[in-house]
């Protein structure tokens, strides 16, 4: 038998590595935090990795989890060993099939990275709400609590399902286990073969549907027999506990790792016991061992097999001495008598006559909330009280229902031998990647146990990452973050973070602090904020400084300081002898980067070699002397809620926000990004008034609404700050006015799209434009003052402006600003434009995805309000239902308008004929028309105020619907082309007046670049590793087939005026409108500064022809289709090979790349010809019918 290897991997990989080896068909769909399991499976199959029977599993990406479950069901019914991976909403979409699969006694295992469910808000983080939502489906639920267990239980569940015929859901905690990197013993193929009984595999196949032995499965049953049929399965469920136990025993004989259905840990004569499952069980187990060692009569039961719940096994596991138990559920079931595990425990004790045991239940760890030994200790303390609190919570401050237990955060069970390290990095600097490598080195090159866990920011640009590393000779049962004052080593890889976060709170007295700064060893001390100096002195930290930026620059590493800081870590921490550490780092560099070419490996080697000469220990003075202090999270002018609640989240103190501070129904104020000055740009644009032609293009393309222009009365200028720039306005509508382009220096991300878009060049020096980038730090303070002044200048009066030119449209206030989207994002300029044009009367239904994350992820959100308090109202329902969600909004408005129109005439005597007539016949096609209608509604309200009539009250409550409301349905291509397409199609077919904006990045961007049906032929994406072999779905053409849907395909980088025109037409069209907007994306692997240029190339090559299909034209006897771009005039290569998504296929498989390119060219040609023919068709008036 092959020897088992120790590997350092995360829970997703540990699970997938088993699942891939014991299945034949794998149907997948991406969802955080389980996506990586599908990605691994796809990658392994693409590379020809075989399962234990010597054949490569077939992996297919589906359009949704519902689709994946259906496919799995079908594959199972025809006899394939089949699996899938999912989480959260994805698991909910599988429920109907799960009932079927269980009802038909079908062997399969679904692997679930358990995650919260979207309720008052979405959460991607871990808890058991999803798993608990399927506990009634008839599936066996087996929960693992660590990376090793996830690996082990993957095969135990596979063995048990074949034997029992009951489908298994194997789950582990999302992020905490799925993303924790840990050193585990990897099972060999032989191990798996020994666990899986081939006779049972063949029995599974023998039950399959085949015309050779035809049967019928899936009948419709009636009242006479359905019930009995449902009861037939009982013996199978009764057998499951025994089968799982048997599999666990077999596994133990094989590996020496013992598991039980209910693992008891602690004093055999324990009096107090906690009961829980998942990773929390690890924490409880370690805490119990520590407390029991001190003589406390405590214990813990780790529930492994939650369904079927074996009362016998549970009771057998619970010592007879137990007087009280606390059942901890990582879920929330509002309105229930208690959470599920709690209820099961009570039931088990009652049924078995153990009624002398006091039971309390509590909730913990929702959405990856920390669950620490201190909390376990608190629960035991509670159990010792004469009247312990039931239905408690632990880990939060509940000052509303007072459910929460107090705990002592300083309680720790960490072994002194364990080394704990915390690293703060910038997303872009590679800190996490380096730490993943470090933990692999430690795990695989030393005898130490090793654990790495990584926490990320809620924004997508300028993000903070935190890496938590533990290693040492003792077992690491510590699935929780490193607590304050316990870290041996704290590293700050980004100097500017010192002014924002308290990092040194993690450092233990006498620990080490490593700082990357642009300063030399002599000067760095004076550059530190006072709080940092104070902490270094008080904790007697050894302080090391390196200018890693300088080392990176000199060795050609750019901004990536990862290997430099990694070298420092090994050099200072002494975990390995220095020479060996450097050799290992280099080995890992070769392993990680080698396949990308030799040069990158050499650059990294050079960086490693140059590091130690630049690393210095700083002599720490005895007193803090700095005049600098840490900056407040938000502006002093921010509202109280923003300061107290959102501010706490910004400084990573959100765990301390009490229940009372949170909105009860998930409703938050808009316009809060304005208060969070992230200050992440190294360079910002600077305006040159003398060159500027005031075209507004820079403002138009800005993804973050940080560059704006205004025309204003010159009389306001005397109050301007000294450096505020102004010039004569060149707008025919505004003669004699002043004009300014202003940048928000602390909100800009430095993406340079504005500079790229600027058409004005200096005639004496063409490299200089009307907008040029300049270093931000010297400009920060003065431009911030200028920005404040600029904001105070009055916004343009919308009623005086026709927004049909770029420059005019950009005078409108953006009501979507400073989002956390990627720097240079290709989506947000469209979103911002829509907010400018219609923001004060729009409602947004936003599909889950990038746009819902940069649009609605806490702490601060970008949808904003104008000075009248009006602005977009925004909501996110789900990923799959967004079109329907938006349609519902439209239906409400339509119904309410209808009702108001029905009752309004009844008030003619009070309101007057003119007002009633005008209200009912108002033309609201312009801002001026909307303003007039608002005035009329105000007049109505004035006249009806205080009227006691019921209808009058109704009318008052609904009168605002008489003012036009624009419904916008937004989302990405994953939603529109795949998971939400059925709904989208139906909503378009409904004929209702909704505006659908598809931000088409041609890939699932938010979940990390999986292929969608929009992904073009030849592009590489996850789940299309060999380059997508089929052509992109033509969503526009499908929509046009209705004949009454307004459809436009736009790309603002190719033709901004066309984009503007299409959006205005779409909104004006009284029916469904679909705008498909080319959105360049970080997932394309392009220089984001060239995103607009790529858009132009996409159009010029014919990949993305621009068109508008306006059904209104058919009424005039015209062809509704207008092709707005020229015949393709640029070879496709010139577009695609600027993008890594295409180029990497050329580098990996040139022959296939060329074949797909050729086919893609053919696609372009035939589509162009088809569109040309459509556009040339003769229409002869009326109804869209062709003659």
């Amino acid at each position: 038998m092959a020897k088992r290897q120790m590997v350092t991997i995360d829970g997703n990989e540990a699970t997938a590595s088993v699942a891939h080896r014991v299945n034949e068909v794998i149907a997948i769909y991406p969802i955080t935090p389980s996506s990586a399991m599908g990605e691994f499976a796809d990658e392994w199959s693409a590379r020809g990795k075989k399962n234990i029977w010597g054949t490569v599993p077939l992996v297919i990406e589906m359009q949704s989890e519902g689709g994946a479950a259906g496919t799995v069901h079908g594959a199972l019914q025809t006899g394939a060993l089949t699996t899938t991976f999912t989480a959260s909403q994805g698991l909910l979409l599988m429920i109907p099939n799960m009932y079927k699969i269980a009802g038909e006694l079908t062997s399969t295992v679904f692997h679930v990275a358990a995650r919260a469910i979207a309720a008052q808000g979405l959460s991607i983080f871990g808890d058991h709400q999803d798993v608990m939502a399927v506990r009634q489906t008839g599936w066996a639920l087996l929960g693992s609590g660590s990376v090793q267990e996830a690996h082990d239980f993957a095969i135990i569940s596979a063995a048990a399902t074949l034997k029992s015929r009951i489908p298994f859901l194997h789950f582990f905690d999302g992020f905490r286990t799925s993303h924790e990197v840990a050193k585990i013993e990897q099972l060999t193929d032989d191990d798996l073969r020994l666990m899986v009984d081939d006779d049972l595999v063949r029995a599974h196949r023998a039950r399959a549907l085949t015309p050779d032995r035809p049967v019928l499965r899936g009948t419709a049953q009636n009242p006479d027999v359905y019930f009995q049929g449902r009861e037939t399965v009982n013996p199978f469920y009764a057998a499951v506990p025994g089968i799982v136990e048997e599999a666990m025993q077999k596994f133990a004989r094989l590996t020496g790792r013992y598991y039980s259905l209910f693992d008891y840990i602690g004093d055999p004569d324990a009096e107090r016991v906690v009961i829980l499952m998942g990773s929390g069980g690890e924490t409880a187990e370690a805490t119990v061992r520590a407390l029991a060692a001190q003589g406390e009569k405590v214990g813990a039961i780790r529930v492994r097999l939650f369904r079927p719940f074996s009362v016998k096994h549970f009771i057998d596991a619970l010592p007879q001495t137990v007087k009280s138990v606390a059942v901890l559920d990582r879920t929330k079931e509002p309105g229930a008598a208690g959470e599920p595990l709690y209820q099961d425990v009570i039931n088990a004790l009652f049924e078995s006559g153990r009624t002398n045991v006091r039971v309390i239940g509590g909730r913990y760890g929702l959405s990856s909330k920390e669950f620490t030994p201190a909390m376990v200790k608190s629960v035991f303390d509670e159990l010792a009280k004469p009247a312990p609190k039931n239905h408690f919570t632990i880990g939060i401050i509940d000052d509303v229902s007072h459910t929460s237990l107090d705990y002592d955060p300083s309680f720790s069970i960490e072994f002194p031998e364990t080394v704990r390290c915390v690293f703060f990095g910038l997303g872009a600097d590679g800190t996490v990647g380096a730490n993943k490598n470090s933990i692999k080195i430690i795990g695989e090159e030393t005898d130490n146990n090793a654990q790495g866990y990584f926490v990320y920011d809620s924004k997508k640009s300028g993000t903070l990452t935190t890496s938590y590393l533990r290693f040492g000779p003792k077992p690491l049962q510590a699935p929780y973050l490193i607590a304050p004052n316990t870290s041996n080593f704290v590293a700050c890889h980004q100097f500017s973070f010192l002014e924002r976060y308290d990092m040194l709170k993690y450092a233990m007295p006498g620990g080490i602090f490593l700082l990357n700064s642009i300063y030399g060893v002599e000067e760095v001390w004076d550059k530190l904020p006072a709080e940092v100096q104070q902490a270094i002195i008080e904790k007697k930290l050894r302080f090391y400084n390196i200018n890693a930026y300088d080392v990176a620059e000199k060795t050609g590493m750019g901004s990536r300081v990862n290997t430099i800081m990694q070298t420092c870590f090994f050099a200072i921490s002494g975990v390995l002898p220095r020479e060996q550490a450097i050799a290992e780092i280099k080995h890992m560099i070769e392993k990680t980067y080698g396949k990308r070419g030799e040069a990158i490996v050499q650059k990294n080697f050079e960086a490693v070699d140059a590091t130690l000469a630049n690393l210095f220990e700083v002599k720490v003075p005895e007193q803090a002397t700095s005049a600098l202090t840490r900056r407040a999270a938000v502006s002093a002018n921010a509202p109280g809620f923003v300061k107290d609640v959102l501010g706490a989240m910004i400084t990573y103190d959100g765990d301390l926000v009490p229940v009372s501070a949170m909105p009860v129904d998930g409703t938050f104020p808009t316009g809060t990004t304005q208060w969070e000055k992230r200050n992440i740009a190294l360079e910002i644009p600077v305006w040159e008034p003398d060159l500027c032609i005031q075209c507004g293009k820079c403002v138009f393309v800005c993804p973050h609404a940080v560059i704006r222009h205004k025309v204003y009365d010159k009389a306001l200028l005397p109050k301007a700050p000294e450096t505020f720039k102004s010039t004569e306005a060149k707008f025919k509508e505004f003669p004699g006015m002043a004009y300014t382009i202003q940048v928000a220096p602390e909100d800009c991300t430095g993406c340079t799209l504005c500079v790229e878009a600027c058409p004005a060049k200096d005639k004496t020096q063409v490299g200089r434009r009307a907008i040029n980038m300049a270093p931000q730090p010297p400009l920060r303070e003065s431009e911030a003052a200028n920005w404040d002044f600029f904001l105070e200048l009055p916004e343009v009066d919308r009623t005086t402006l026709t927004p049909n030119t770029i420059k005019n449209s950009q005078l409108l206030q953006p009501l979507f600003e400073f989002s956390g989207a990627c720097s240079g994002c290709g989506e947000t300029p469209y979103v911002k434009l829509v907010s400018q044009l219609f923001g004060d009367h729009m409602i947004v239904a936003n599909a889950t995805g990038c746009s819902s994350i940069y649009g609605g992820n806490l702490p601060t959100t970008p949808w904003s309000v104008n000075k009248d308090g009006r602005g977009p109202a925004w909501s996110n329902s789900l990923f799959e239902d967004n079109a329907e969600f938006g349609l519902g909004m439209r239906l409400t408005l339509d119904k309410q308008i209808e009702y108001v129109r029905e009752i309004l005439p009844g008030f003619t005597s009070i309101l007057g004929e003119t007002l009633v007539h005008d209200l009912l016949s108002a033309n609201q096609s312009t801002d001026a028309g909307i303003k007039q209608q608002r005035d009329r509604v105000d007049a109505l309200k004035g006249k009806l105020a205080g009227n006691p009539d019921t209808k009058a009250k109704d009318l008052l409550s609904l009168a605002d619907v008489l003012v036009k409301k624009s419904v916008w349905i937004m989302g990405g291509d994953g939603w529109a082309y795949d998971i939400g397409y059925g709904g989208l199609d139906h909503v378009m077919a409904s004929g209702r007046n909704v505006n659908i904006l598809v931000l088409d990045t041609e890939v699932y961007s938010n979940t990390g670049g999986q292929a969608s049906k929009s992904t073009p032929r030849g592009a590489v994406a996850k789940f299309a590793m060999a380059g997508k072999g089929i052509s992109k779905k033509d969503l526009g053409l499908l929509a046009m087939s209705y004949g009454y849907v307004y459809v436009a395909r736009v790309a603002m980088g190719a033709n901004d005026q066309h984009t503007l025109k299409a959006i205005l037409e779409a909104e004006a069209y009284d029916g469904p409108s679909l705008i498909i907007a080319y959105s360049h994306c970080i997932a394309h692997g392009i220089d984001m500064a060239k995103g607009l240029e790529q858009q132009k190339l996409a159009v010029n090559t014919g990949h993305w022809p621009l068109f508008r299909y306006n059904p209104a034209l058919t009424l005039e006897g015209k062809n509704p289709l207008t092709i707005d771009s020229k015949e393709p005039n640029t070879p496709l290569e010139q577009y695609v090979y600027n993008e890594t998504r295409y180029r990497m296929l050329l580098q990996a498989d040139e022959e296939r790349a060329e074949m797909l390119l050729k086919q893609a060219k053919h696609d372009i040609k035939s589509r162009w010809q088809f569109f040309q023919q459509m556009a040339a068709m003769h229409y002869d008036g009326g109804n869209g019918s062709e003659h």
Partner: protein
Amino acid sequence: MTDLTTRYLGLDLRNPIVASASPLSKKVDSARKLDDAGVGAIVMYSLFEEQIIHESLELDHYLTRGTDSFAEALSYLPDAGTYATGPGKYLDHLTAVKKSVSVPVIGSLNGVSKGGWTRYARYMQEAGADAIELNLYYIAADPSLTAKELEDAQVELVEEVKSSITIPLAVKLSPFVTALPNFAKRLCDAGAAGLVLFNRFYQPDFDLDNLEVTHNLILSNSDELPLPLRWIGILYGKVNADLALTSGVHTGADVLKSMMAGAKVAMTASELLAHGYNRVPAMLEEMTQWMQSNEYESIRQMQGSMSQQAVKEPAAFERANYMRILGSYRDLP
């Protein structure tokens, strides 16, 4: 029977027409067509120093950018494959070309600075190259850089490359050298077994509509022949290296002139790119016919026959030549 064979860099070639570094060698199929058309040898398209370094760095940059920053998207592109960034792909291709043609294949390396990239000369040798052509492509735009510094660096580079290979090394030069024969001699001393005169540069152009600098590579024509012809003629017999003429070779006559100036081979690409592979047999036929009608037995016989040291008026290659051309103009009526 007219003998068209020649010997260049120690390689026996069936004739002196060599396909110079161009896109024609980018496909195995087109390389085979060159072979079938009858060329004496093929110089592969160039592997650039920038390509060796930057393709790898660029791929790494885009595969790494944005990774491990956001919890839902820890990466944006799949990264499972092994990528043939410029060098690897080039070497694989070189091997494939070498296997599919009957004539010698010369690898081409293009760069100016010393450094790790030069090891690719050895990799080309290992991949099957019969010789290496090193293209010294450098525009000296820095006023503080002296001619001596630049030449010293290039000589060192040639030494570095030569030290890593055992096959012959040819160096392709720019015409913009103050004292070409001296520099040529230094290159030969550093290990160059051949000198290729001259490389052609991508030249900048301006797009007046967008006020942008553009780059075009314009195909050569026969008018460009005299410049390398002169320098081949001057260098012949003065340096210990085989000379190759490139730029402006479009006809059989151009090849013959090259030979007479002292070249061992004449390289062409523009002619073939513009008019197809069948220009090779046409040029060979033209050469044969001329040689037969002028009773030349072999190419070797004429090589260097009109070099500076072989002609009656050596000054024709130098300044006096200039005076004579001016003097040859007649006043127009």
